[in-house]
């Protein structure tokens, strides 16, 4: 492994790790706030227990997200100093605002976690809501910075110098809104299905059924609303990418020939050397329709893009396919759940519906990771699309490969411990959080 690939791998791994915790930090506080709200309105102690149980999970996951986020703010410079030297002053605006949002989130979390019996009930509730709102703002701002890398704005390059810098224009680049929308919905889908799935599993195991049913309903409902909206956001995003980054769209679809009535390619194995896709299912016209809203419009193929500007086609294609397949599956599951809620109440108590949700537990996060790969690998070979190549941005320090091994070890062990801790939280629900349980004995 050479140092450049090691640097890219380390960055990808750090972001791939952080994104999970960031999503939890954006979404779980809202679940908590809903449960807390119901508790304050009804006085039902089962909701109080649930709010506390969730807040413990949030504390663990938020801290992991906060430290991995801190690390990322350094890694940008440690791995990509040339990029940061030029990009920092341009796309720094969302980061400086994100600093505020993140700070507010940490303060509000301190209030919320330690505020039981110390703060007025509704002020306490409000601090929980602020955790969620500032988490959401953080996420949107960071995505705006990433969107700038896909859709650079707010500067000109003249003779290799970055001039006419306008940080506000850079922040509100063409891609920020759609990327932020897609990411926010994705966070709700992924976290919602993960939480709902875990509680569904407990319901199937007949453990603390009332408690877990309440938890399942809140998380599943949020997840399903987001999952039904996500395909719409995905469609708008695809049209946008087709305009701004045709190479990325072509790689997502492994689309080699520029043609009208372009087919939507499902599956298949792309061969970059031969410039063909083998064993794929093709649905004529659909790609043209998805990209431009018109089956007769041509979609730019990779053959019309210089090969040195191609992203790695196979990875982007596979990741895109995984994201789409999972998104469709989750949207269908959401549809079933909504039908059950409104017209088929009998389905709600049945095992098969819970089983489907258990299957869905990791799928949202897999889709998030796949989507992240699509947008990041799909931007290659550029670190700033059309302006700076990733290979020109990497640190001159040799030996990054060892740093990559070190960080891999850290992330693998951290992930294992977090899973272990959440498992232990689940095991202790009866004892610590569920008032109806005979063993209930809170600390």
């Amino acid at each position, binding site marked *: 492994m050479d140092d450049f690939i090691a640097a890219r791998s380390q960055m990808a791994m750090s972001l791939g790790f952080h994104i999970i915790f960031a999503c939890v930090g954006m979404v779980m506080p809202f679940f908590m706030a809903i449960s807390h709200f119901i508790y304050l309105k009804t006085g039902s102690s089962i909701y109080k227990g649930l709010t506390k149980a969730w807040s413990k999970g949030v504390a663990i996951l938020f801290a*992991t997200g906060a430290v991995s986020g801190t690390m990322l703010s350094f890694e940008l410079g440690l791995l990509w100093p040339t990029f940061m030297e030029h990009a*920092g002053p341009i796309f720094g605006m969302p980061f400086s605002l994100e600093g505020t949002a993140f700070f507010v989130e940490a303060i509000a979390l301190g209030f919320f976690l330690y505020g039981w019996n110390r703060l007025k009930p509704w002020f306490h509730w409000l601090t929980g809501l602020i955790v969620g709102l500032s988490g959401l703002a953080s996420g949107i701002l960071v995505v705006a910075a990433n969107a700038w890398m896909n859709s650079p704005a707010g500067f000109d390059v003249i003779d290799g110098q970055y001039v006419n810098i306008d940080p506000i224009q850079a922040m509100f680049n063409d891609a920020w809104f759609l990327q932020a929308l897609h990411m926010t919905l994705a966070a709700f889908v992924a976290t919602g299905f993960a939480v709902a799935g875990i509680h569904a599993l407990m319901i199937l195991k007949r453990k603390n059924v009332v408690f877990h049913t309440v938890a399942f309903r809140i998380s599943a409902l949020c997840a399903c609303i987001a999952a039904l909206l996500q395909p719409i956001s995905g469609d708008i995003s695809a049209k946008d990418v087709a305009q701004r980054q045709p190479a990325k769209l072509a790689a997502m679809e492994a689309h080699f020939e520029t043609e009208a009535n372009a087919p939507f390619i499902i599956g298949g194995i792309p061969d970059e050397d031969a410039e063909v896709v083998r064993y794929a299912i093709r649905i004529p016209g659909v790609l043209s329709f998805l990209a431009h809203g018109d089956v007769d419009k041509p979609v730019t193929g990779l053959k019309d893009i210089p090969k040195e500007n191609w992203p790695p086609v196979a990875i982007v294609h596979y990741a895109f396919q995984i994201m789409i397949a999972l998104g469709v599956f989750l949207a269908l599951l959401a549809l079933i759940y909504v039908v059950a809620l409104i017209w088929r109440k009998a389905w709600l108590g049945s095992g098969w519906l819970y089983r489907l949700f258990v299957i869905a537990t990791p799928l949202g996060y897999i889709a998030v990771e796949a989507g992240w790969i699509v947008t990041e690998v799909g931007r290659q070979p550029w670190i700033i699309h059309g302006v700076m190549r990733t290979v020109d941005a990497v640190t001159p320090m040799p030996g990054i490969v060892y740093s990559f091994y070190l960080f891999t070890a850290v992330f693998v062990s951290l992930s294992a411990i977090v899973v272990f801790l959440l498992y232990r939280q689940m095991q202790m629900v009866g004892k610590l959080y569920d008032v109806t349980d005979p063993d209930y004995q809170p600390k």
Partner: protein
Amino acid sequence: MLYVVIIYLWASICLYLLLGGADFGAGIVELATPRKHRSRIGAIMAKAIGPIWEANHMWLIIAIVILFVGFPEIYTTMSIYVHIPLVAMLLGIIARGTAFVFRNYDAVEDRWQDVYSRVFTWSSMVTPFFLGIIAASTVSRTIDVQAADFVSAYIGSWLTWFGLAIGLFTTAICGYLAVAYAMGTVASERDKTLIIRIAKRFIFAVVCVGVLVFIAAAYSEIPLIDWIFGGTIGQVAIASATLSLALTFVAFNRKKAIAARILAGFQVVMILLAATYQHYPELVLFKDGGGLSLIEHTGNAKTITSLAWALLLGSLFILPFLFYLMRVFGKRSS
């Protein structure tokens, strides 16, 4: 507007040293306490920092964002040449934050608690040590942008006796700040007596390591004495730091918790002032005599202006909320 940004940079470094430092100190104090009292001290410290520890570390993020937006050359130069201690510090930050939370929130209390405690205390010690090394490397004239080989470019840039001494000094200061903070959060006489005993050890440690810093500076040929005693500000700052150290000792003895907190904090601010004032506006000094200055090596004017506004606006959200947090949880709990 540039001066607004510079003030915010200095203030966030200072607040990180004070609040983040006290936070690291919680682990250091636990590690430095004899085994007999360790779990008691651990509990006191965890209670004192629990609600505020995450907010304390946000100052580091603010400082780093100011650097990479406003002073990208400084940020990238440090990232390249001080890469290794930065990575060590980051690993410390990760290990410490997660171990602290895992220890607090693990639903089952079993032998894993020992693992979390060990990771938490040791990483609390290691992280400020490397922070000190990084800070020392900026003024040691050891960063060599023309270096050709790995050792002089990436190791010689930070590995000096002076750096090691500053690392130890930072660690001692953090522990010292933590006891001063914790003093105000305990209620029982027994706990107070225990804290005072530990506080005296840390005051002793700060003095000893302080002397060591001057010796190491002389050995590494760093004109530390000239820097500090060469100007009025430095002289005044060091004189008041020394005076407040003595006063802190008295405050501890008389169990004046608030006074101990304020004096310890004031003392650390004075030390930071003395350490940074002489070089201002230069932040990084190079081996070849050059350096990076906060006035000359800035991002463009428009960026600085918007950064300043973002910081001012951010403070409106952060500061009242933060003061309230510290007021609610900084007091003695019943």
